């Protein structure tokens, strides 16, 4: 038993002392791994990370752009709407003015027409009146003379006398007519 320990101690390597071959191999092996990771693996993953970040940022940017566009469109729409409203108001005002103008014109026209018709009628009436008066006057003269000649029994052939009588009568008639 004791012999084993002695023998073992003789051939055993002190575990705290490194073997040069292992240091060298560890360094080389790690170096190869480090090179592979540094040269191939890490760049690939970093590229992926960048792509991912870009994609997310791109998405956000796109959304922001769309939002801005929508906002712009909204403002444009609002502006157009306001413009249309003012235009409509203007058109309405114009129409009202126009209507008023047309109404005034029509009224004036109608009034003028009415005046004209009234004037016409009056003129016609005057003419008819004059005519009737003239007719009546001549007829009245004849009738009066005839009646008078019948009553008197004498022919008022005397021109001058007849004329004077008739005229006197008419003048009397006129004064009574005017009084009435």
């Amino acid at each position, binding site marked *: 038993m004791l012999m084993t320990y002695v*023998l073992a101690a003789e051939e055993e*390597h002190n575990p705290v002392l490194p073997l040069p071959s*292992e240091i060298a191999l560890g360094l080389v092996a790690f170096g190869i791994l480090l090179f592979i990771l540094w040269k191939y693996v*890490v760049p690939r*993953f970093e590229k992926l990370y960048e792509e991912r970040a870009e994609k997310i940022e791109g998405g956000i940017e796109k959304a922001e752009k769309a939002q801005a566009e929508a906002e712009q469109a909204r403002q444009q729409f609002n502006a157009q709407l306001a413009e249309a409203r003012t235009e409509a108001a203007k058109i309405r005002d114009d129409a009202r003015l126009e209507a008023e103008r047309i109404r005034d014109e029509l009224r004036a026209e109608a009034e003028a027409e009415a005046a004209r018709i009234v004037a016409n009628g009056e003129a016609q009436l005057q003419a008819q009146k004059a005519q009737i008066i003239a007719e009546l006057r001549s007829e009245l003269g004849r009738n009066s003379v005839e009646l008078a000649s019948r009553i008197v029994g004498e022919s008022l052939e005397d021109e001058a006398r007849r004329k004077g009588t008739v005229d006197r009568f008419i003048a009397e008639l006129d004064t009574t007519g005017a009084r009435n």
Partner: protein
Amino acid sequence: MIAGRENRKEPSLGALVLAQGGDFVPPGVGDFFLPPIVGGVTKPMVLVVLSVVIVAAFFLIASRNLKVVPGKLQYAAESVYDFGRNNIARDQIGSADFRPFVPLILALFTFILVNNLFGIIPLIQFPTFSHIGFPLALSLLVVYPVYHIAGFRRHGFTGYLKNQLFPAGAPKPIYLLLTPIEFFQKFVMNPITLAIRVFAAMFAGHLILLVFTLAGSYLLLEASAVLKPVSLISWAFAILMTFVEALIQVIQAYVFAVLSAGYIGMALAEDH
């Protein structure tokens, strides 16, 4: 493992006889230094090369055709990459400077992780980093120069030394004490503790698994009939310890990468 143990005892006829006679030989340092497989090639050497092949193949195949929306393999690779890149490198070094160090931190983490996990993978069952040569190669010849060179490049020679050895904000007499401590820690101890931490954890863990496994088989084969069932308890502990080991192996790989990144971050920082 068993074959190795027998091989180790081959030169000593006395030991072989004793072992056959039924004495329990506890596992020791010898179990970590098995004779070469062929020529000068030993098991840990093969495993280190295998780990490089595994990690490189995993990342190369998974990253062959990366898509913005990942598949299963890409998702797995991306999770590991993301962990090394964001959780270790970026957190420790800072988002301004971490990018050039991502390959180094990722390589450290995955390389150590796979080599540690070899300790519990059936048939392989040997944590490569229980041989101090491997962690020492990484800490002393990779991490140590990287963080000091990064610091010298960033702050200039005297600027970096002043930054590292005379931390701002201490009263003047304190520097008599502080500066030697800072120097000893940053220029001497850091790479050594970095290597020893993972080495010791792997060494001890493997030893514990050996003890429970070998004790179990010894109890089953050599002990008296009453004690034979105890071997089951021993093996149950071996299985339990395997799970604990899995946790420790992952943590040690993480710690190594985090500390490496932390040293780089401290070297680059303006003041700390």
